């Protein structure tokens, strides 16, 4: 699965979790860019990502995510 494809699926998950109509994610997108992306919705975001790709992250990994690009890389590494 390409980074492009992962980002696309991720956009849908963001829309679902944050209850947004449309989300345009880039690798550089951070929580500062999306108002609804706070610590609470972040927990649900990770749950949704883990469910979607059938993977799981450690808390250390989760704390290391600074932007969407970090998350995409982690998904790509785990989901192959």
């Amino acid at each position, binding site marked *: 699965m390409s980074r492009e494809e992962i980002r696309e699926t991720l956009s849908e998950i963001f829309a*679902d979790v944050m209850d947004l109509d449309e989300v345009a994610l880039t690798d550089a997108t951070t929580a500062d860019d999306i108002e609804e992306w706070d610590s*609470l919705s972040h927990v649900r975001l990770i749950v949704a990502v883990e469910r979607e790709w059938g993977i799981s992250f450690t808390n250390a990994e989760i704390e290391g995510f600074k932007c969407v690009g970090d998350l995409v890389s982690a998904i790509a590494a785990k989901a192959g």
Partner: protein
Amino acid sequence: MSGLPIRDLGWLERPGEDWRTRLKALTAGKETVPGAALAALARPALNLDRLIALDRVRTKLGGRLDPAGLTPLRVALMADATTDYLAPALRASALRHELLVETHVPAYGEALAEALAEDGALADFGAEAVLVASDYRSLGLAAPRTDPGEAAAVAAAAGRLAGIARAAAAAGATPVIQTVPAPADPWCGHLDAALPGSPAAQVAAVNAQLRALAAELGAPVFDADALAGLAGRAEWDDPAYWHRAKLAFAPDLIPLWADHAARILAALRGKARKCLVLDLDNTLWGGVIGDDGLEGIRLGQGSADGEAFQAVQAYALSLKARGIVLAVVSKNEDDAARLPFRQHPEMLLREADIAVFIADWTDKATNLARVAKTLNIGTDALVFLDDNPAERARVRQMLPEVAVPEAPEDPALFPRVLAQSGLFETVALSAEDAKRAAQYAENAERAAAMAEIGDYGDYLVSLEMTCDLAPFDRVGRARIAQLVNKSNQFNLTTRRYTEADIARFETDPGVFDLQARLTDRFGDNGMISVVMFRTGPEEWLCDTWLMSCRVLKRRVEEAVLAAVADAARAAGAKRLVGDYLPSEKNRMVAGHFEGLGFAAAGDLPGGGTRWVLELDGWRVPELPMRLTGALAPGWSREAAE
């Protein structure tokens, strides 16, 4: 996997592709949104994200939501962990059970302090129910104890939760006491249960105390420990989420938790279902009786399929034993449909078990409405089990208020679907519940007797009724509370009181209270009416007057009035005052007081009416029944002697 997915609420239909579109559409316009539209979106199995989205829409609608059809309930959520997901999930899941829940959540860690403060946020909120939930880590039970300090740790933990529950009860709210889920990981392994200092044993000891407390307070228990076991303890108790966000259990299980919390609150508000309506072919037996005949259908020992269908029947009978009424709606010829009930040796269900039996070719939604009408209950008290997805979809479309659980392909799972759905959840089981199914059958016999006699007055005399009139007492308490919370139609004021309230009324000198029972030659109807008047020197004001619809048109209300009037006169009062407060469902009693001879005394705010009966000129009518009990009017006792 062939099991029923518990965590994904496998008994509920899946949300359609267009779920989010339908949700968004609610906030698009400017017009009022009926509560039923929100309830419809809440009915499918929703994951946490969707529950939160639904709750946001409800908040956004604000005054545009027409709450008619939803029962409002104010719930304080006193939890020792992160509640940010629990509260919206509970509010959204409550809509599935036709409850409009407002929540109050104290700041993290302040639940006990807030409960004990006499004024402050919790008191201002005016909670009707207080959910007391905790976690073994917050309670200090995570660490094993090798010194004998475990008793003190258990006492401290249980005392903390009891403090919140008692404060809630004292403030007039109903505490809902959640047991503490035991940790997934053992200390010494299988030995843990035998070691009082193990975390598992400490949690078990706390839970035993919580159960005793609940029994003492008459409060419902939310058995979260059992729920964790059901969901899988290792999935429930997820340490990563505890460390990450202080979530007491895995967020994937929040929809399950929320549905269980909501069903208990719904049961507390008398919203439990009363009747299970069963399809026949491929639901109670394998095959089609009209095509396959008595020998061709699969039922009973000898085949796995046949045993599964027999288990469905056994489960239906277990519901009947606790007062759930059984009915049949099937597309069949009537005689073919009844054949297995009469002649198949492996049938557990017999015709006598079925209160209403409809087998014809009319569409099932129409026939379900007929079942409700025959039993004198609302269609929202029905649960419909049918193996055919098309029939289920049709009924859901025509009668969205009928609960139609998803039936998995394998009939072996039908009982589990019914059991896990919680549609027959109850917060108390009274001795009367067990008799109810028989009472519906007796009603059918009475109807037959009526048909034979013809004249209604003669018919009432022929019933040989005895009406027992007594003040509230300890024995009747649970049933009184149940009637007060469940009766919708014959209920003048629809005021709800908890069992604890009822206990207080028993000794309150400012309250005249009465419970009525009715027997006749066909059987015992049990307790069928509850009445309370606020007493005053001049006038007595009716606070509550309700009656079971099973005994409509039996002149029981006149017998009850005779008892009230007799007591009021003896106390020196001059008149009785009665209010009719309209609700969604009580239109049938709009003319109640007028029918009893009360005079109109003006309108009340909110569409109600007030009625007055001057006791001076009032005369007791002749009643077709014997009156007994401590509150039977003096004249009737003399007449009997």
